[in-house]
């Protein structure tokens, strides 16, 4: 029900954005920033929006438009962006559902004089990328967390969302690099895709436990998935013997953290991500983002854009939930 309501609100926002003059009634904002999540109507992006709204309040000469598709489909995103381009916003910031498919519309926006940047889900073409967290840092964090439980010589397995998901792929790459560099004793026996499905993660975990007697730990990627893996381990009575580490939200993992099935859950601060994205979009519109030149992003303090293969990027620091701090976060 709330999902439907939000969709309607988003549509209204879009309508406002498309009607010239309607949004200019109060004060005339100098910059119009479009921020597009992968989809609307899930708790995670609601949390992100809190940060977005907070940043928008701090920037009176910017109008921030939050819009996104009802499902995580890149086609819908492209459709929406196509309709936004003629209204000539200053910046579009997209959490791409597909890094390659989105490229065409990003280029089209740039051709129309609009700054195109990505956040959350990267695009193969953009001027700036606000990453959730630094991939290497996150991969390293996951490996450190699991080897704390299994020791540096152990067989492990990974559950991911899909092999095409850019974040998960990057983290897996970072995990492998960390293993090859520091813990060659850790052996990845298998990597299986579970989508964003707690049930599928549960099923795969049960299969892992059945077929891999030497298994000591599982890294579970994708916010809904660690809960499934934790349930399977707990049900098998292997809590504490088989390590479960992954990325998820505090709301989903609170119980497993508290009962000890899971010791560490890695994530980033979702509202902070929205907050940082809006600040970056604002600075991009003003042309003040340069690689290696630090900038101040409101209450989050200083960030320094890093040059990467496509353009430049910043990332949030990794946030680790344990049973001690989990109750401080609600999303």
């Amino acid at each position: 029900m709330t999902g439907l309501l939000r969709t309607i609100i988003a549509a209204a926002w879009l309508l406002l954005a498309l009607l010239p003059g309607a949004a200019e009634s109060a004060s005339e904002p100098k910059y119009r920033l479009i921020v597009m999540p992968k989809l609307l109507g899930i708790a995670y992006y609601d949390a992100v929006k809190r940060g977005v709204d907070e940043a928008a309040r701090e920037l009176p000469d910017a109008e921030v438009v939050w819009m996104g598709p009802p499902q995580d489909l890149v086609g819908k995103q492209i459709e929406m962006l196509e309709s936004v381009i003629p209204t000539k916003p200053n910046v579009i910031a997209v959490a791409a559902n597909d890094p390659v498919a989105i490229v065409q519309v990003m280029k089209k926006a740039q051709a129309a004089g609009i700054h195109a940047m990505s956040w959350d889900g990267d695009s193969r073409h953009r001027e700036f990328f606000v990453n959730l967290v630094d991939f290497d840092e996150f991969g390293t964090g996951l490996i450190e967390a699991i080897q704390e439980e299994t020791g540096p010589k152990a067989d492990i397995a990974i559950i991911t969302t899909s092999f095409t998901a850019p974040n998960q792929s990057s983290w897996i790459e970072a995990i492998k690099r960390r293993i090859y560099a520091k813990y060659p004793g850790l052996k990845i026996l298998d990597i299986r895709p579970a989508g964003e499905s707690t049930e599928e993660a549960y099923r795969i975990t049960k299969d892992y436990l059945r077929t891999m007697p030497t298994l000591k730990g599982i890294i579970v990627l994708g916010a809904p998935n660690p809960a499934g893996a934790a349930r399977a381990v707990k049900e098998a009575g292997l809590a504490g013997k088989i390590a479960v580490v992954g990325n998820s939200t505090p709301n989903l993992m609170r119980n497993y953290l508290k009962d000890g099935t899971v010791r560490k859950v890695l994530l980033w601060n979702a509202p902070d991500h929205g907050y940082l994205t809006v600040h970056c979009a604002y600075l991009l519109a003003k042309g003040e983002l340069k690689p290696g030149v630090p900038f101040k992003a409101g209450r989050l303090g200083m960030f320094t854009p890093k040059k990467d293969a496509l353009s430049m990027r910043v990332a949030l620091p990794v946030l680790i939930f344990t049973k001690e701090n989990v109750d401080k976060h609600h999303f």
Partner: protein
Amino acid sequence: MKIMTKLNLMSIGIVVVMTVSVLSVGIWIINDILYKFSEQVLRLELENAGKTIFQELNRSGVRAAAAAAESMGRQLQMKPGLHTTKLAIIEATDNRIVYHPDFSPGDRAPFAFVGEMFQRERGVIEYTLDGISTYAVFVTVQPIDWLLSLSISKAEMLEGRGLFLREVGIITFVVLCMNAFLVSLFGWRLLKRIGATAHCVNRIEKGELSARIATIPVRDEIGILQEGVNAMCERIEQRTAEQQEAEKALREREARIRRLVDSNIIGIFLWDMQGNIVDANDAFLRLIGYDREELAAGEIFWTRLTPPEFVAADVQKGEEVRRTQTCTPYEKEFFRKDGTRVPILLGAAMFEGSGETGVAFVLDLTERRAAEAALRSAHDQLEIRVQERTSDLKRINQRLEFEIQERKQAEEGLAQRTHELARSNAELEQLAYVASHDLQEPLRMIASYLQLLEKRYAGKLDADGREFIDYAVDGARRMQSLIDDLLTFSRLGTKAQVMQPTDCSKVMALVLRGLYLAVQECGAQIHCDPLPVVMADQTQLAQLFQNLITNAIKFRSDASPMVRIAAEPTEEGWCFSVEDNGIGIAPEYRERIFVMFQRLHGRREYPGTGIGLAICKKIVERHGGRIWVESAPGQGTIFRFTLPRLPDDTQHDRLAEEAGSRA
């Protein structure tokens, strides 16, 4: 046999070069084909395998994908021609093996070229691993960053090549050898035929004109050449025979000509421009009194034979001979050996193309000269007589000329007088016209003032005065009508219109319409026959008819007047007649009536000016006709006049014929 050796050597060379060429080009082509074919097959298999592997990966994860790759690799190795293929998966992160038949998963791939393959993303690569030369097709897959590679040993790939080379090489060699043999055989046969031809030509050259090439087996280029040689021999033989015959004929003719010259009664000698006499016949020698020995010794020169007064003529004739190759015969004299002279007629001709030498013909004129002298004396006597007769004739002629001159002068005087007469006549007409025209104005003034006088002062005048005025008015009126008629008459000459074909019936109808009142008044009966079309001035023709009819009515007798108008064809053209039953004219007046102002009656009996018939006469004469009258007093009158017929007047001819047939 030299050509044969060359031909054979060339054949062997071609066999060797062609075999080597075919083999090297064959290797090049087959290599290319094998590489392309292998690449396509391997890529197809790789893509096929890749699809299955990725399906498995996305469904069941990395281990399942590796298992699928292993199974696919095994299946590939079962296929023919792909026994040495190896399917491998390597991931980009640290070049770790995901699947490879020779390595364990997770091992680091020990191949130097993996980096290059990742960089190129897709393509083919050749490398040597453990001493085995290998060819591989590879493709990278994103976003998983895997490298899929399918390799095959080159030995297997190029297996077909050896077989191909062996078979194609042998076939080519055999075919070329056969070709060389055939060429050699053919060349040998050709050379044999060329040899036969050369032999024949040699024989001809040595004078054996009857030599021929015995056999011509094939009618190819050499056959045609041989036929040509045979034909040529035939012609040479024939020509030679003909030439010999011609020479013989020539010799005979020369002898005959010699005979002709020597035995001729006309003197003939051959000369040159230097004055020599090269040869001469007996007649000539006799003429000039020399003998043949002197001629042979070159002692006779035609220049020395010529007396000095003929040198100029000789030079002139010499020029003519140079120019035209011949000269017209001319008379001259030659000195005889004894110093006397002989008159001769000499003609000369130059030998064609020589420019210097020629022949001359000499005729002795001694006898002819004597005859001529006799003739000349007879001729001289005749001449004297002719001169006498001629002088008589001349005198008579002069008299005649004088008379002709006189006659001419008289004619000229006559013509001049005629011309003056015509001019004075024209002037008179002009004068009459001008006078009558200009007289009208003062006359009209006299008449109108007289009438005014009569009107205003009639009461104040006595009977005599009124009578005088009446006389004056009457006189003025008469003068008016006189002048009118005079004007009309003079206008006939000065105001004539153009002659054109005019229908007389129409003109007559117009005239009768104008005379209607006058006719009615006197109760006249007028009958008019159909009238022809003539060339006429329409106005004048109307005047003519009107005058004649008016006359006929005017001079009527006591009987009621009847007028008949008719026309008939005559030799002079159309003859019109206007006949009445009036008072008639006495014969002595028949000419006078046509003179101007001639009246036969008093004005009181018959009014009028007396000019009407003069006008008629003039009109008719202007139209090239004549007018006359036939009448006797009390018998009525017939006026007749003629008008020329039109050139194409068929009616005239028809009527004339009818009249003729009636007669």
